[in-house]
């Protein structure tokens, strides 16, 4: 594929992510933090986010399966997830986390379970999207071009 076309594709794809609300301003900021000294900053952060989130989601699933549900702990986890999501700009996940926390506060097990499902769903979408984006970027870099900002 032509390099320019790839670059255009990446830009379009990124724009669509913003438009569809998967990502927000924060992600742009993140990208701005990346420079010569720290060329893989975004990827590093996002991978860290993936790791962290998967761990948290597992924890949450486990916690919700318990007989006696420790809402405090769940809340702390959701808070963590919300924080890291907002840090990378995954705003859909972040917004769901807010709803999740409300259920948590109300100690609504059903709501929590429902939310957990939704969060997992959103998370997997964002993960796929981001990964494909990184894929595109890698392709561009491999082709010798520079990633458009």
């Amino acid at each position, binding site marked *: 594929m032509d390099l320019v076309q790839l670059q255009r594709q990446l830009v379009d794809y990124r724009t669509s992510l913003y438009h569809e609300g998967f990502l927000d301003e924060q992600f742009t900021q*993140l990208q701005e933090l990346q420079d010569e*000294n*720290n060329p893989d900053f975004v990827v590093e952060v996002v991978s860290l986010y993936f790791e962290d989130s998967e761990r948290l989601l597992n924890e949450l699933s486990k916690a919700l399966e318990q007989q006696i549900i420790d809402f405090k702990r769940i809340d702390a986890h959701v808070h963590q997830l919300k*924080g890291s999501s907002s840090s990378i700009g995954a705003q859909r996940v972040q917004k769901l986390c807010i709803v999740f926390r409300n259920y948590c506060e109300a100690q609504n097990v059903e709501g929590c379970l429902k939310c957990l499902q939704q969060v997992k769903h959103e998370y997997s979408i964002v993960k796929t999207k981001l990964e494909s984006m990184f894929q595109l970027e890698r392709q561009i870099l491999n082709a010798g071009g520079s990633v458009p900002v």
Partner: protein
Amino acid sequence: MLFKCWDKVSTYGFKLHHHYYQLIGSKRVSKSWWRKLLLSWLIGWTVVSFWIFCYMSSQATEKRKETLASMCDERARMLQDQFNVSMNHIQAMSILISTFHHGKNPSAIDQTTFARYTERTSFERPLTSGVAYAVRVLHSEREQFEKHQGWTIKRMDTLERNPVHKDDYNPDLLEPSPIQEEYVPVIFAQDIISHVISIDLLSGKEDRENVLRARKSGKGVLTAPFRLLKTNRLGVILTFAVYKRGLPSNATPNERIQATDGYLGGVFDVESLVEKLLQQLASKQTILVNVLDTTNQSHPISMYGSNASDDGLELVSHLNFGDPFRKHEMRCRFKQKPPWPWLAITTSIGILVIALLVGHIFHATVNRIAKVEDDCHKMMELKKQAEAADVAKSQFLATVSHEIRTPMNGVLGMLHMLMDTDLDVTQLDYVRTAQASGKALVALINEVLDRAKIESGKLELEEVQFDLRAVLDDVLSLFSGKSQDKGVELAVYISDRVPEMVIGDPGRFRQIITNLMGNSIKFTEKGHVHVTVHLVEEVIDMIEVETESSPKNTLSGFPVADRRQSWKGFRSFSQEGSIHPFSDSIRLIVSVEDTGEGIPIEAQSRVFTPFMQVDPSISRTHGGTGIGLSISKCLVNLMKGEIGFVSMPKIGSTFTFTAVFSSSSSSSKEYKSQQINNQANSVCSEFRGMRALVVDPRPVRAKVSRYHIQRLGIHVEVVSNWKQGLSVISQGSNVTHMVLMEQEIWDRDLHGSSLFINNLEKIDHSTPPKVFLLSNSISSSRVNPSTSGVCNLTVIPKPLRTSMLAASLQRAMGDGNKGNPRNGELPSLSLRNLLLGRKILIVDDNNVNLKVAAGALKKYGADVVSASRGMEAIELLTPPHQFDACFMDIQMPEMDGFEATRRIRDSEQNINNHIHFGELSVETYNNVLNWHASDQIPLERTSAYDMPMASIRPPLLWHALRHFNKLHFFPRVNIFL
């Protein structure tokens, strides 16, 4: 009457003061004391004046009495003397009779002789009206005697019983005397009283007594006063006994009686005599004289004078007429009643009036003082209230402004972020408008807050070392857009003698300049705004040297107001020598000159009054509140400077202020400032040693250009036209690296310009100098076809700033790729300055957040250490440590940010804070951004504003961190990220 009035006045006054002294209880004592003093004063003086009256009137009476006494005595003595003279004469006459009548036989004296003699000697006896001689005749001798005389002895008592009138008096009608043992008939008499001849003296009651006493005593004896026969006037008779010869002087009364021959009597007409006497003396009319016989004390017989009883002053003088049996006295009185003692009355009343007046003055004064004190107290009270109200107002303003500012910053931040999202044109426009309004609001709030702070005395200036030129560059860049839009030339010139670094408050200094420049640009449509900074001493020297500068010699060629007028009233100029002793103080004088519309003369007096604008329409056309200049004035005063201006309508205004800074001395502070500036220095070093040529016919403008270029370390030469420039380049031994020319010259002579450029290339040098065009506005140069046609020509937009100039030069000189000109350059650059080399600790339990924040801070050169738990942070931050700052998540498991912060603060308190470089500022951040401009609010009270973790965005991070900039060591500001 007077006293009544007085009482009224004083009671009224008392009433008044009663109220007053109820308010001020402590003064009541003194008030009553005053009243007592006043009362005693009045009483005292009343008594004194009364005493004076008594004293003076008694003195007058005494004097009168003395006068009377002396007059009375004088009269009495005269009367007595004359009487005595008469008496002596009569006595002498008795001896005459005894000698010539009884001693001779026959007698040598008869009635005729006697009458004639007595008549002729009567002048000797002025008091006697007549003299008579009676002989002692025993009954046995009566007949013979009567025969001898030729008349019978007649009795007198019938006469006494039936007093007769003078004219009717006929002695022949008198009865003959009855038979007695003894008779004393008158034989001789003076003619005046010849009617008494033959009358028996013993038959008259008074005469008988007289005769008997006279012969017994042998001295002159007086009768009581009685009505004289015939004349019927009051008189006394003096009787002397004539004894036979040879009677011893110590004979017994009986012997005397036996030896008696006869009796000589003198009639004293007392009344007429005294009259005569008094007439001889002066002031007869002033006194009344009474002569009395007081032999019988209870019934004094009046001898002379009216008997009108008068209880007035009467003086008694005793008279001695030689008869010890009879007592006489003279009583004198003044005819008139004593006059009123007017002198005493007027004197005493005068004294009393004076005393009353003095008392009144005293009373009035006390009242007045009390009233004034009362008023003063009231005023003080009111003043206190007013001041308290003013302070309260200022505090309220400060608080409210602060409270408004905090959320406003949130709003602004959000707007900024909103602008970066995908917005269509309309939305973007709305957001821009909202942001502009918000900024304006914040600016206004800041101004109000400043004003309030100044008024409540809370504003304190910082003492920070700063680069004056950098501050001015900052301000310049702030206004560059505006000035370019308007086509107004903007320039800053700082004298070489002004030191690089001074110690003062850069923020406030900047605020003043911003305000003045803002005003100038606001009101200037064409021409220029020119800021100059000099040392005061330099300007004073300049005044002496500088002659009348030509009006054309200005930055843009427009005439300007004479700026020397603007500092005419400055005190520091007049007392120049006295301020000098502060050797390390730097006194700067800053002038902002514009060619705007000027200030109308009638409005010039209230330029520095807050909220006063030239006229209300100004705020409509130009905006603003009119508070800026008054704040500037306050700030200038705080900097121990003065501010003044000169303004000529239609020509322009020049504002000038002075400010005192201290010169930076080598200290620990220097380290910091160097660190901050090393970047600019690195830029400078690139150009150091290069040579530049400025082509500009206008010296003022060329001076500005030179100033800026020289700051980059470039050697500058100024020429006024092409030809000169060319000759300098070709003849000079040194290589000229760049040529900077004014657009004015370029436009004026396009042909010459291109010729010049061609010539430049022809000159045999390794590299021809780069040519730069100093242009006032970018747009015009772009439009100009000639500029774009020539290559190797770079346009440097004015206003000249060192950073801008450096960037342009860098780019043009071939190594411009280092720069990374993007929006938000300023904050990120500043952030870089701020964070470069700082050791910062971030604490968050969220790995992703930690990573992001670390990335953000590292990007600006910070040395970041991450920690995931509060406990870890506490361990790391136990002094001594190397951290400059710490950012901490508020919400963390185990220990939240607040708790951790508190513990760290506690540990700092236990250990001497100054043990280690850099006091620690623990910053806490969360997914929320929450920062506070003030460090006065305790931790617990902070409230969070929800914001995504966008805090790594440069503007917000900048906001949060800019406080670091103000203080040398990271302070304890509670910035919550």
